């Protein structure tokens, strides 16, 4: 299934609910979506030809991974015009870990003529829980792949659009340079640290409150209430905390001793949401009697 990118700030496709929540639990799922990914600390004011504050991922989850998953992946490269017979592909060990999401996996970085184009990971744990079945996550770096296919040295030179009538080209730089420059200034120099902490604390406490309320609802026999409880709302709040953390980090506002603590706090939210989600998805559908009661 093709999905839309998640419309909240996330650092990677992994953090979107389509991955983070879908890999949990026993239900099979296959999804692909584009995900613009914001990483404030990676900003380079538009001056580095290979590094962006916001890069674009193609995120794919295959749950469970098919036996020929590697072949499927290689076939996807052929499909976009990469003749594997003419290039050098290697699978080099690279395991992935996200302490804030309580997630980690085992896999590779896929190298194409010396360039890393995809992170290929078999998830083992997410939200602090062992997964069964596991998911294969394929995360393609689209700017890199586009630059490779178009044979340009800088991602800003990628031809983004071409007017069909005039042939006039617009490059990636045309559409993204201002964003990269201005957001680098914001993230490194001008983001308001005080306010960022306050935002973080507000989102965090609201998320915690929701999770506390969930505990009461989960314990009750009201399956309708369970099903409609906004865990997705809680997760959004958690994602906002994570993004604010990234901004504060880029601003240099998080001390060495604080860092571990803040990561732990966000992890607690993510793990809380994950566990709740699994419980909620296993809840039974409401009975006719219950529905009738609510309608009264």
């Amino acid at each position: 299934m093709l999905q839309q990118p998640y419309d909240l700030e996330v650092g990677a496709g992994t953090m979107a609910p389509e991955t983070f929540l879908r890999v949990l639990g026993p239900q099979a799922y296959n999804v692909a979506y584009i995900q613009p990914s914001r990483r404030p600390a990676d900003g380079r004011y538009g001056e580095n030809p290979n590094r962006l504050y916001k890069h674009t991922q193609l995120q794919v989850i295959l749950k469970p991974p098919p036996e020929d998953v590697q072949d499927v992946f290689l076939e996807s490269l052929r499909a976009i015009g990469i003749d594997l017979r003419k290039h050098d592909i290697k699978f080099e060990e690279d395991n992935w870990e996200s302490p804030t999401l309580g997630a980690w996996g085992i896999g590779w970085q896929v190298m194409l003529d010396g360039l890393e184009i995809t992170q290929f990971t078999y998830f083992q744990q997410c939200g602090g829980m062992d997964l069964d079945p596991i998911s294969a996550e394929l995360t393609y770096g689209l700017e890199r792949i586009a630059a490779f296919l178009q044979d340009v040295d800088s991602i800003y030179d990628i031809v983004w659009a071409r007017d069909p009538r005039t042939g006039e080209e617009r490059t990636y730089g045309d559409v993204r340079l201002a964003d990269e420059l201005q957001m680098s200034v914001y993230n490194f120099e001008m983001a308001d640290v005080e306010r960022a902490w306050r935002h973080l604390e507000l989102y965090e406490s609201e998320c915690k409150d929701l999770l506390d309320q969930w505990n009461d609802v989960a314990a009750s026999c009201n399956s309708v209430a369970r099903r409609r409880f906004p865990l997705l709302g809680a997760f959004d709040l958690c994602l906002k905390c994570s993004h604010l953390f990234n901004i504060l980090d880029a601003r240099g506002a998080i001390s060495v001793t604080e860092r571990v603590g803040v990561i732990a706090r966000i992890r607690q939210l993510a793990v809380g949401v994950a566990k709740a989600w699994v419980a909620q998805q296993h809840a039974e559908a409401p009975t006719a009697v219950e529905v009738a009661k609510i309608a009264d």
Partner: protein
Amino acid sequence: MPDFLLEIGCEEIPARMIDAAREELKRRVSDVLVRERLAADPVLEPFSTPRRISVLARSISGSQPDLEEQVPGPSYKVAFKDGEPTPAAQAFSRKVGVDLAQLEKITTPKGEYLAARVVKKGRPAAEVLAELLPKEIAGLYWPKNMYWRPGDTNLRFVRPIRWLVAMLDGEAIPLEFAGIRAGVSSQGHRFLSSSKVSFASPAEYAGKLEQAGVIANPAEREQRVRKALDAATRALPGARWREDKELLNTVVNLTEFPSAILGSFDPQFLSLPEEVLVTVMRDHQKYFAVEDDQGKLAPHFLAVLNTDRDPEGLIRHGNERVLRARFNDARFFWDIDQKVPLRERIPLLKKVTFQKDLGSYYDKTRRVQRLASLVSEALRSAEIQVRPGVVHKATLLAKTDLTTELVKEFTELQGIVGGLYARVQQLDPALPEATRFAIADAIYDQYRPESMEDGVPRTLEGAVLSISDKADSIAGMFALGLVPSGSKDPFALRRQANGIVKTVAEHKLPLSLRALFKDAREGYTGSEAEPKFKTIGYTSEVADFFHERLEFYLREVCGYAYDVVNAVLAAGADDVADAIARAEAVAHVRPSEDFESISIAFKRMKNILRQAADTGKKIAPAMDAAAFTDEPEQALGAAVPQAAEKVRRLGEEKNYQAALQEIAQLRPVIDKFFDKVMVMVEDERVRANRLALLQAMLNEFSTMADFSEIVTEKK
């Protein structure tokens, strides 16, 4: 006598794990073959590529030999009464399935018994191997593994297994693992071949795979890589590729069919230091560096590919682009880093975590400075000319490169970048250039030796910085209870401790490890970490840890025999340089007959004294020479204090060989004593005095080594 082939086909195994796993698989298969009597002395050929590990065994038995055993039954008296078989005999006969008439009478030390000759039929090899090999496959050790089968989270392997080959001559054996049935088909190269590869027999293995684009033999792959690198370099007259054993091994384990290409980069990048360029090429891109006939770095690189050729130059082009981007980054970072010289970066270290409980690198810098100055003082009082000013500045700046963009991007350049920057930057206008270079070299060398094969810091000041930095880390971790165990050593404390030992040894520094680690721990006083420290066990744990490291160094690196090492360390493992000097002396005299005899005598002395202690016999507090009556004991009683005096003096001069000679010269008088004199006599006073003589010898002469640890021919 069929051949046997086992191949485990899986997704790409991390390069660093392949060699050990291949050898382990070979060993495991060999053990099974021998244990199950399918081969007495198996000749096994192991293979590996990133996608498979395999073993080929030639000429094993098609089935186990029958095993004839003699099974003992009831005693003869119980088995037959008046010549007639009893129920006991009949029960035994039934149990072993042998007729009464075929049973035998055997004579054992315990008497006569009824016995049966039972033939345990050998099973077919196919059956035995199919049954036992899955456990061996499951038992392979992987530093990191994963599970992948739905519902089976216990089945773990390094990566998902996708096929299995297990065949005896032309037939697959009924082996199953991870839900896969073994067959006679394998897979060729992902891109150079299109179909399955089937083997008509194990002997076809390597050849058929080669036809399918897979060079299964790693040694052969290495040869191909070398040849390919040579051939590619020939395009540049006079040039050579830089040997890099570890990189070579890595690329061999990253390819199923290797070839090499020569690429180039803009010569203006050569204005960057070679270390930076080579590190970027090697660590990130796995390229080999190329040098010209003068040994200077050339603007070229060699990449090893997992394919057969690059006819259109696309692969070279792609690699060149990536390298260009990396070098541009490196140059950009180098230039931008100069804007903030090292000396201005010290406060920035407050934001760089050393370890979550032990604080920042700023805190560490302060502690290492203090420790290094204590170490310098200790060395200076031993007449070793360490320059305190150099140590002070070097320790102050040692970690500042962690805040540079270049190290943040290329973390393996830690220390090196600090040293390079210190060389080119103005640390202090008052400093003479030679001093600045000394500071730079100390910073540059601080993380050496990276391994036992690597060199130690070149200068005394570098040694002091390196030792202090490592001691600070080890002390903090041990105090927190983060002690390495088994294969778990996430902070590489063993490597750091080995580094300390090697550095102290090669610079011959007279340092006490106990004092060093006491000072190191005290460096944490008043810190946020301190309340988290454990209150007991630190000193002994650190001592044991270093005992192990020193043992390793003396045995594996210096090559001393294990008993020499044991003897020397029993007399003290606190002063590394001293232990080495003693080991050298002991190893030198060990082959002599006199020494052998002394060792025997010391064992005897220790035994007697232990016996005395165990049976509560008194030992006189001091030997009374006047009370000796027999000639041999008088002779020994006189010789011991004389020799002890000399040994003590020679020991103080660290002239251990001469000291050992003195002890060896006592041999005749010691031998005569043990020949003629009985120590454990009835008379309490005489006995106590003789024991005192033994005790005195042990005390005086065990300061260099415990001779009773030396392995001797006779007892």
